[in-house]
């Protein structure tokens, strides 16, 4: 009874052609194969996902660094422009241009009316 039971689940020592359980065993074998394939595929997928993820992280790292560098460069450029504006707005320079190039003079008393 016991050996029959084992034989029912395995094909060890049995003639397949004469086995009454042949369709069931084949099904089981197909199922095993499918299971192995799925398992193998899953493992492969996990491995591939891990590799893909790593590559993506590195690629994004490069991108982040590139963008961070670009941001830093733009901030630096903005500061340089602000410095240049501050230099150009120097009152000494403005007065030199106003008096020397444009011929402007300081308003005399009475020429300025303060609107309050």
């Amino acid at each position, binding site marked *: 009874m016991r050996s029959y039971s084992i034989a029912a689940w395995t094909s060890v020592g049995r003639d397949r052609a004469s086995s009454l359980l042949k369709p069931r065993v084949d099904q089981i074998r197909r199922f095993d194969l499918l299971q192995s394939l799925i398992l193998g595929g899953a493992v492969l997928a996990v491995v591939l996902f891990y590799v893909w993820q790593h590559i993506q992280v*590195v690629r994004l*790292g*490069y991108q*982040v*660094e590139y963008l*961070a560098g670009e941001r*830093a*460069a733009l901030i*630096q450029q903005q*500061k*340089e422009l*602000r*410095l240049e504006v*501050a*230099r150009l*707005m*120097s*009152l*000494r320079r403005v*007065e030199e241009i106003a008096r020397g190039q444009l011929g402007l003079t*300081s*308003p005399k*008393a*009475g*020429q*300025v*009316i*303060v609107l*309050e």
Partner: protein
Amino acid sequence: MQRRSGEKSSDKGATTSGAAKRSLLRRRVIILFCSLTAALTVISGQLFSLQVFRYSELVRVADGQTSRRVPSVARRGTIYDRNGRELAISLATSSIFVRPSQVENPERASQALSAALKLPAEKILDRLRAGKSFVYIKRAASSEEAEAVERLMLKGIGSDVQSKRFYPKAQQAAHLLGFVGADDQGLEGLELQYDAYLAGKRQWVMRQQDAKRRPIFREEADEAHGADLYLTIDEVIQYITERELEAAVTHSGALSGSAIVMDPFTGEILALANYPTFDPNLYSEASAFARRNRAVADYYEPGSAFKAIVGAGALEERLVRPEDRFNAEGGAIEVGGVTIRDHERFETLTFAEVMAHSSNVGAIKVGQRLGKSHYYDYISGFGFGNLTKIDLPGETPGLIRRPKEWSALSLASLSIGQEISVSPLQMLTAMSAIANGGNLVRPYVAKSIVAEDGKVIRENVPMPVRRVISEDTARTLANILKGVVTDGTGKAAAVEGFETAGKTGTSQKVERSTGRYSRNKVVASFVGFVPVEHPQLAIIVIIDEPATLRWGGSIAAPTFREIARESLKHLRKSPVVQEPFRLAEEVRHAAFRLN
């Protein structure tokens, strides 16, 4: 049977051969197994050794190849004037450094660096062979140059990002701002005073990099930028003050000059200038004399300008009234065996006239009425001999002796502003107390300190020190000082359309070689405020050793007028006399009548 036995023997031989083969196979399998086991043991042992015994060392080596500690740029805070105009800005710049002991081939390295940095190779080689452990090859290099050096991947050579200070207005407010050293630390002025707030905290972060040293990841650093500093200085008033002071010093052929403009009620410094001056961008090229903030750090004998202090004390103690008459002794008085003269002969003068005409004889008599003890109390009360506690480094408390150290001449000398040394800032603070109704206020330059996120870290607010004289005394004295400008020695200080009050001062300098007062060297000054009714500005102008125009009234007073006139215009204060308005009103009324 024989055949059977032959078959049997043949079977036996086959069996023997098969057994031998199996035995050989087994042996081979055993050898293979043993070899594999041995190999695996060796590999496992090696792995164990690498993973356990040499773990830390190998992690360090791997990190060294893929990770790098890089500095995050700690930007120094910006300094703004009261209207948010930039006076000092920091930018990130790269510095190329070398550790000569680590450089394997100095000749090749200098050639490569020369190409990357556009510097002479010989100069670089000299620096590499200077015998130092660390040298900077180039400071303030561009980011392209720094990247080019990094790409060279030379051992012992690298770049470092630093913050560099720029002063866009060059000389403007140079003595106030001060300057920073090569390592971005404050060395003078506000840069030194507020260095703890302005300086950013430098941090190091780990950067992952590939084989070509290109960054892949970087740790997020809490960028600790320095806080921004907002000053009480008005850029326009500062410029006006510097321009007029430079003109006065140049015109009079003086050694130097100082001028300060202050809000007499709050103590806010609106402008502070010294001439000669310097460009903080190139501070190392300037002389120590040009860099000295003489308005705060130097003292001088105030001369006649100090008569306002003896007058304040006498008025407050009700020992004199403006109309009280004094015998001016014909312009000379003998005290302690020394004859002190007036600049012209006066017979009788009221107290107001003593101030207006700056009579030495009259002032000495006022001082004698006040007495040593009281006078010293008022001198101290107005802040002389003590620091004003302005937020600038290097302030001098001045020089004043205690009454017990005074000679028979001291009271008279002090009444005319001799035997005492004060800083221009102290003199202006005292005059501000007269202008604002009798309160001595602490002067200050920094209005607020603001963090990068906009949070106000610290705010300076007006701080009254003490009441020195009553409001009535202050008002009376202000009217007397108005007379100095309308009728006395300070006529040149009159600002058209505004009532002006102040006091001239011309004091002889002490010759260092002889220890006596010089006949030629003087300090000419004017200190006052405008408008008298609601003072907006308290101004002091000091001209040191003018070669021509040697009187306070002839060189310092006109400079005061120009600074006050232009500054009031900038502050949109309308003159009391408004001729154009009057004319416009008349035209409007005439047009109305015609209609």
